[in-house]
């Protein structure tokens, strides 16, 4: 259980001079499953990217805290696990190699047992030494989840988590989300009703214009 918190203060984003959203406020702590919903174009992906520290907001602040210590942007990446349809992994390497490389670049230990556990959970264990180039889109999506979970981050951000997945894949994801939501902050950005049903709190982004 972490005493991690994410707080946004009057978050606004403009692209050029066009307003995407304005004065978004929330305060999410410790654990739980939080949703961000809105029609296409409302800025869901943009908002989660800001939370993940990938984009800077135009005004306002997003503050990540571990207990009471604020985390600086340069160190944020190891506290976040991120999955989205536009995330691409290195296709010239195998799944196993990809995960190993990521651990090294992150500067965290590569826990073989944990990785094998996840590979099995996500039904990829028998393909772990195959190049990602040979994976189907559903397999790639599942691998992305492993990428997000591997380093035990305090925050999990899933943008459209069930895209590209069949019913079986979706079930695995929902199980993981429910389980992780008991120990960490899980943020889901989606339009799917079934995805949002898991959330205890939902932010309706189109209200923030």
């Amino acid at each position, binding site marked *: 259980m972490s005493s991690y918190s994410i707080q946004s203060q009057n978050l606004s984003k403009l*692209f*050029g*001079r*066009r307003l*995407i959203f304005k004065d978004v406020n929330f305060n999410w702590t410790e654990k739980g499953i939080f949703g961000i919903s*809105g*029609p*296409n*174009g*409302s*800025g*869901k*992906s*943009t908002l989660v990217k800001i939370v993940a520290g990938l984009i*800077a907001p*135009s005004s306002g602040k997003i503050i990540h805290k571990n207990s009471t210590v604020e985390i600086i942007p340069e160190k944020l990446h190891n506290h976040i696990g991120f999955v989205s349809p536009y995330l691409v992994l290195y296709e010239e390497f195998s799944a196993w190699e990809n995960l190993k490389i990521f651990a090294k670049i992150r500067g965290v230990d590569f826990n073989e047992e944990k990785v094998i556990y996840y590979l099995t959970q996500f039904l990829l264990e028998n393909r772990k030494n195959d190049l990602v180039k040979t994976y189907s889109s559903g397999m790639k999506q599942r691998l992305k989840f492993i990428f997000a979970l591997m380093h035990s981050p305090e925050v999990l951000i899933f943008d459209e988590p069930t895209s590209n997945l069949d019913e079986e894949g979706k079930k695995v994801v929902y199980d993981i989300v429910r389980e992780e939501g008991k120990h960490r902050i899980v943020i889901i950005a989606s339009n799917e009703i079934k995805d949002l049903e898991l959330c205890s709190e939902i932010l309706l*982004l189109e209200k923030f214009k």
Partner: protein
Amino acid sequence: MIWKIFLFLLLAFVSIAGIAFPIVEKPSAWYEFPFIPGLEENAKIIFFHVPTAWLTVIAFLMSTVFSFRYLRTKNLDEDAKAHSAAQLGMIFCILATVTGAVWAKFAWGQFWSWDPRQTSIFAILLIYGALFALRSSIESEDKRATLSAVYSLIAFVTVPFFIFIMPRIMKGLHPGSADDTNAGPVIDFKMNSSMQLIFFLSLIGFTILYFWMWRVGYKSIIIKDKLDKKIMNPITGQGG
């Protein structure tokens, strides 16, 4: 409005005086210029060449400063100011290069001889060219502003090197460089008072002209940008 008329008269006077006033051995009348060894008849270019070169530098500095401010504030207005300065900088740079080359033909016999100062101004021309090429290849205005700001700053950092390496790498023909025993008319004030007057009036006139054009330039960029946004319908926005 009044000051625009004033500016017009000033620049008109400077242009006419600069070209028409004769250069004589011993200036007696107020409108006569002295004979400067090494420059002689060509001296008149000083009224146009030096101000344009001076403004190229000013424009470059301003472009860099506003680029820096954009990176700090992410306010697109700063980018408009930087861009306006760069546009004018390019124009004045071309003018300075051309007036310089014309003078060079008369003084040294050829338009271009890779004299250190010539090479430096050419390098600045390349930087501006690169900056505009970069800007035109980026659609997103945030990205465009950020990347051109970064490039401006990198370019700014390399420019001082020219001031240092040039005198060593190449011997200079340009007035005021290491080889020139006359040490440049501006520094030595070999100009008489009426010549100095015209020179400084020219400098002031061109500088005011530059700032005026710069203001009009950046404001029109900003207005055009805002108009474009209002008139265009918001199509489906960014992927949500």
